[in-house]
């Protein structure tokens, strides 16, 4: 696995618009025995437990797991928006203590600023960096073009569809020219067609810019379609259960038998986690069986009709 990926990465770095700032040998993002818990119902819930990751410069990794497994928490900690209880995150060997402009997050709800136009949103980061208005405008317009929204540069977010909002969020993140894109289920709320289109566009952007991407999703097909590596995170506590190398070149075909068999393998493992979450949430044993609706033994179907 390592050999092929190193090969692929070398090519990517060569393609990148600017030279990589670190040597290939040194990992870009390292997560070291990270722990995080939250107060919950008077007690504490361990959300992340002993998380270790090492991500290379320019790599596309996916964090895959059921809802509530702590994927978003991990993204927030890497972003520096949240602090771990124990362990640390290193970027180029430097520990993360606060948000940095080298790491930008794209959220599921896009989180655009509703009082700014598309252009205003994309310009926001450079403006905060004190970049002159002419320069940042030109750059913003270029990025808006990259995400195919030139016609909507002066539109406000409320006038855009969900997919368009996510495109703006991606352009807004790229305007910071970050080394790392942290994506927290960015396409989770979109319909299948729009999602597929944005996935392809994201891959193109990734290949063109050589950014390191950490992509959170609960969708196996999405994770295996995008990531060079997929980390499966277990539910409560969130631990890295498996790391899968997706050693297939982009663009990947959805019907590629190697991809399908990998998806089957991951789905099987993920199913156990989903059952755990279901049991946690409903307080009942849950055995996923095909063709059956999960039901409590003490159910009284139609009682309240």
């Amino acid at each position, binding site marked *: 696995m390592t050999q092929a990926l190193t090969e692929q990465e070398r090519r990517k770095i060569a393609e990148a618009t600017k030279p990589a700032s670190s040597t290939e040998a040194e990992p870009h993002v390292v997560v070291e025995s990270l722990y995080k818990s939250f107060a919950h119902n008077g007690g504490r819930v361990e959300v992340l437990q002993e998380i270790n990751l090492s991500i290379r410069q320019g790599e596309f990794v996916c964090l895959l797991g059921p809802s509530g497994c702590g994927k978003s928490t991990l993204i*927030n900690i890497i*972003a*520096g*928006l949240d602090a771990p209880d124990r362990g640390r995150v290193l970027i180029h060997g430097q520990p993360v203590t606060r*948000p940095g*402009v080298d*790491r*930008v*997050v794209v*959220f599921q*709800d896009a*989180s655009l*600023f*509703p*009082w*700014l136009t598309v252009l205003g949103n994309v310009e*926001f*980061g450079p*403006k*905060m*960096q004190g970049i002159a208005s002419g320069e940042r405008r030109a750059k913003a317009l270029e990025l808006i073009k990259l995400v195919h929204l030139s016609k909507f540069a002066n539109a*406000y*977010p*409320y006038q855009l569809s969900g997919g368009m909002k996510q495109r703006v*969020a991606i352009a*807004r993140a790229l305007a*910071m020219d970050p080394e790392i894109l*942290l994506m927290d289920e960015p396409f989770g709320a979109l319909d299948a067609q729009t999602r597929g289109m944005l996935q392809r566009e994201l891959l193109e952007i990734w290949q063109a810019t050589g950014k390191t991407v950490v992509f959170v999703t609960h969708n196996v097909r999405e994770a295996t379609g995008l990531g060079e590596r997929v980390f499966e995170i277990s539910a409560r506590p969130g631990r890295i259960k498996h790391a899968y190398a997706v050693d297939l070149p982009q663009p990947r075909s959805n019907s590629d038998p190697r991809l399908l068999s990998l998806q089957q393998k991951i789905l099987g493992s993920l199913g156990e986690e989903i059952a755990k979450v279901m049991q946690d949430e409903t307080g009942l044993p849950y055995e996923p069986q095909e063709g059956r609706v999960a039901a409590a033994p003490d159910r009284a179907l139609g009682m309240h009709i």
Partner: protein
Amino acid sequence: MPGAWTIAQRLVEDFHQTAFVHALGGSLRRMAIGYVLVTAIGIVGGMALGRFKLLDEVLGGVAVSIHAIPGAAWVPLAILWFGATERAVIFTILLGATGIVIVHTDSGIKEVAPNILRAAKTMGAKGINLFWHVIVPAAIPRIVDGLRLAWAFGWRALMAGELLTSVAGLGQMLNTVAKARQLDQLLALMLLFAFIGASVDGLIFKRLEQSVRTRWGLA
């Protein structure tokens, strides 16, 4: 009880009288001055409470308490301090309506959606930049809600102030016609209060609120 037609006729006649136009002008001027002060003090005060935790702990309760006192209850104190003057009326508007603006601005600033703040922070916004370019604009829908309510509260406080002072205005006129037992005139004036209050609310504030809510994606 005079009929609607009589009241309407009376209203038309009123507009031909210098004293009435003078009173109406005086009331509107006081309301305008009072409302500008309410807006300025309310927004600045609310922002200060929202931004500085210590200030909020010391003065946050005061703002809520002031907001709990009806505007009319300030009139006696206003007269004690300023005499039965125009200043007393404006003071009454100020105390009657500023609290609601402070409370709304403050809560708007504290309740900015967490992801909006996170997004801004990852893009390098912090300190005063974060406050001006993110937190304040994000709070605008709440601030507008506060301003709309402040208009209604201020308008009531204006009437209370004018009823109890002898400053030339609609409130004082109401007193005069009531003493003279001119019921048609009294009802005509009350109708006018309702009309002005509701028109400003409907034509200005409701529209403003609607357009803000649409743009902020809340409608």
